[in-house]
């Protein structure tokens, strides 16, 4: 915890969950969905890294916890995506330069155009020089310094309450998640972000098997636990199988998330929906939006929220900074008050757990990273009754924990599994379950194949297709109606590829015996190995 001489009565723990579904299309440059990664890098990951650096440079001790999911790590590490990101930045620099010309009719807007030019130029420099084109390097740096605890997550963010029908598939999601962590980070892995905070007691034993100490659950995951936690969400609980669960704090999460009263809605903050991708003249902006001419966000936005009105005023960086200071101060004061009150009723100093999607900070709420920086600085310097902490540090200090099983729950809308299991997507689950069963069957049939055999290659690719189809993102997207066609196609593609490989293994046994494939199927295998190249070190035996 931040070491300053103060009377610490409680702790606050920020946990940022950074995740994107694995979108990698070497076959085409036209996938809009790849933009998700580039936007997140520019708007969330790089801004967060830069704020962390600023705090370190200013000798301010702080603690944040982040989960970087395996698909995201894979994408950050992917050469093709790194190249494409550089191109993305170069295009944005070019666009910002053009904007500096175009917006000369208005001083305030023109000032912002220059601001964006500087920003993208600096991002490019930061990415190439300090990250060496791989963002993971910087995250590791802060992890090694001890200010940023990195926790793991399921292989492809599979939703455990649904996959648990075949426990081996959940174990595999955990195992791959742990392996992905250790590929990039050195410190022992202690925490695990359950995808969507989807908790089921049956996964605890597998988490323990891989040395996981704690997970995060939603508020009612703790409140409805059995038996009832004496201290609500202000202390963790430990399940009979030995996994500790921390529950989301209600008060602090509403302050930040709420679009009505929450901080991100402050009128001085940047308006998300007024982007030049939509506002600028079509012929001018065309080279910077999608290939087929559909208008999308570029990241260059000139207006602030202003109020509940269609008329938006120009964004003002100084006013936004004022609001950041005000909001950080408000958050700070509320925690002081909350901890003063709670510490009288809890055995150990209370812990206020604040998990968020990392995307909130920077992408949805442009000023978010600055809010975190300002808050961390305040906590360090001001005389207050709390410190920032990571869940693991809290457990080292206070290892005596009430035994209780969390409630089966998630942090999705309605608190359970509705988002991933409803009329719009329930047709998918039987395919996930069958594929999971078939994968285990294949592992049993062909155990311990020689390292360089073709059969092993095929089974490893089966495993990749399986984890890709299990991604909870497809189900989520279908429910929320955003890029539905893309999500549905992803499910069909992975189920289809898996099934084809499955039958290839079973039917063409004569060819397989000789460890050969005919040309068409060989081309097919190479093609999907190239497209679905997540987890290069995949070993199908995790399904044995």
């Amino acid at each position, binding site marked *: 915890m931040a070491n300053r001489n103060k009377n610490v009565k409680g702790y606050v723990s920020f946990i940022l969950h950074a995740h994107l579904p694995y979108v990698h299309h*070497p076959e085409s*440059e036209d996938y809009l969905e790849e933009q998700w990664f580039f936007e997140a890098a520019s708007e969330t990951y790089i801004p967060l890294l830069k704020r962390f650096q600023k705090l370190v440079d200013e000798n301010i001790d702080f603690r944040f916890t982040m989960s970087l999911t395996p698909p995201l790590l894979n994408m950050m590490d992917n050469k093709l995506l790194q190249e494409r990101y550089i191109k993305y930045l170069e295009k944005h620099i070019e666009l910002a330069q053009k904007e500096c010309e175009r917006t000369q009719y208005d001083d305030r807007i023109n000032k912002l155009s220059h601001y964006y030019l500087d920003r993208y130029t600096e991002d490019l420099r930061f990415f190439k020089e300090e990250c060496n084109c791989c963002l993971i390097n910087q995250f590791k740096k802060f992890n090694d310094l001890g200010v940023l605890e990195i926790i793991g997550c399921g292989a492809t963010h599979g939703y455990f309450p649904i996959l648990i029908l075949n426990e081996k598939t959940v174990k595999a999601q955990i195992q791959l998640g742990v392996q992905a962590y250790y590929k990039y980070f050195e410190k022992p892995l202690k925490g695990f972000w359950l995808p969507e905070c989807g908790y089921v007691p049956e996964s605890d034993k597998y988490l323990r098997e891989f040395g996981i100490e704690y997970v995060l659950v939603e508020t009612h995951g703790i409140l409805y636990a059995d038996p*009832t936690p004496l201290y609500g969400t202000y202390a963790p609980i430990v399940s009979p199988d030995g996994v500790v669960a921390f529950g989301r704090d209600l008060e602090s999460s509403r302050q930040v998330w*709420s679009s009505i009263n929450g901080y991100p809605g402050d009128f001085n903050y940047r308006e998300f929906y007024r982007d030049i991708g939509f506002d600028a003249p079509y012929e001018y902006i065309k080279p910077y939006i999608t290939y087929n001419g559909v208008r999308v966000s570029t990241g260059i936005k000139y207006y602030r929220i202003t109020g509940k009105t269609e008329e938006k005023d120009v964004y003002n960086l100084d006013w936004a900074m004022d609001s950041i200071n005000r909001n950080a101060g408000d958050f700070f004061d509320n925690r002081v008050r909350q901890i003063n009150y709670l510490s009288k009723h809890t055995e150990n100093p209370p812990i206020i757990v604040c998990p968020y999607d990392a995307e909130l900070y920077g992408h949805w709420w442009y000023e978010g990273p600055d809010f975190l920086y300002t808050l961390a600085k305040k906590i360090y310097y001001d005389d207050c009754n709390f410190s920032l902490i990571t869940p693991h540090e809290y457990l080292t200090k206070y*290892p005596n924990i009430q035994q209780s099983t969390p409630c089966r729950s998630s942090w999705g809308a309605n608190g*359970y*599994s509705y988002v991933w299991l409803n009329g719009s997507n329930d047709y998918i689950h039987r395919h996930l379950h069958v594929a999971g069963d078939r994968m285990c069957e294949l592992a049993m049939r062909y155990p311990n194949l020689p390292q360089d055999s073709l059969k092993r290659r095929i089974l490893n690719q089966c495993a990749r297709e399986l984890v890709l189809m299990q991604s909870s993102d497809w189900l989520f997207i279908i429910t929320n109606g955003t890029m539905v066609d893309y999500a549905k196609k992803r499910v069909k593609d992975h189920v289809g*590829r898996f099934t*084809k490989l499955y039958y290839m293994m079973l039917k063409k046994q*004569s060819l397989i015996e000789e460890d050969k494939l005919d040309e068409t199927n060989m081309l097919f295998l190479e093609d999907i190995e190239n497209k679905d190249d997540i987890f290069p070190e995949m070993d199908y035996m995790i399904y044995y």
Partner: protein
Amino acid sequence: MSQQSNDKTFESNANEDIKSTRILIDNSSSKEKSFASKNKLNSILDSILKPNNSLPSDQELTKDIDKGSIPSSYDMATISIPNERKISSDNSHNTSEKEDPRRPIIIEYYDLPYKYDKTTVRVLAQDPNTLFVYWEISDKDRDKFVEQYGPNFFNETKPVLLIKNLTDDYVYELEINDFANNWYIHVNDSKCRYTIELGRRPKNSSDNSYIPVTYSNVMESPNDHVLFFNEGDKIIFKNIATKKLTTRVYTNGEFGNDLKTLYKDYHLENGRFDYRNPSSQNPTSNVM
């Protein structure tokens, strides 16, 4: 997506995979392909798919099968076509990517199988009071029933689900229908272990017989309220460093007051908490 109008000629039959050849060209995210190259594509496909090609025969395919047949709705084709020219409609094409101009394009189109031909029933929990069940009866098992009960078995019986609450030990029955292969079931009791049995009953209500088909996994429905304590309940604490367990006894005085105070914060109603906790990924649309 454009479809070959004469694909019926190549319609697959149930025991083959590669022969099924409904080719769809996915245009949803591709650059403009010239008319000429599309025609070239089609002619190449034609030549591959003529009867005297070298695709494996039925015998070769089925020789080592010990699995059931592939569902006939499973259509997929992969054709490799020599990529004779780079297809590029604008000059911003990526030149740093090493693209082998001779690398073939694989065209894929998949439908999800409409059946797996394996008898199964499985249950999931959508929320504390809603279960989701899906099922399938294999052709082999269908034939067995017909053999045992006569050719009109499926016409003269209706499918039913037996919903068994293992925690509170009761069973009840729900009539479903043969047009569905899944169902949402409302259950009264949260935090209970349920299992489902799929069976059949004669449509003729004077006949009370029941024929079981198969049964499902066990799934516990989630809890939906704070359990609270009774005087004298045991509370276990574990030291995760030393693994030592200690037991305390709940008394309304000692723990009760703190508990009440802390839980007041959550604004529970009948022990229930308001879920309109802003959920992930859509902060601007969730209203509090």
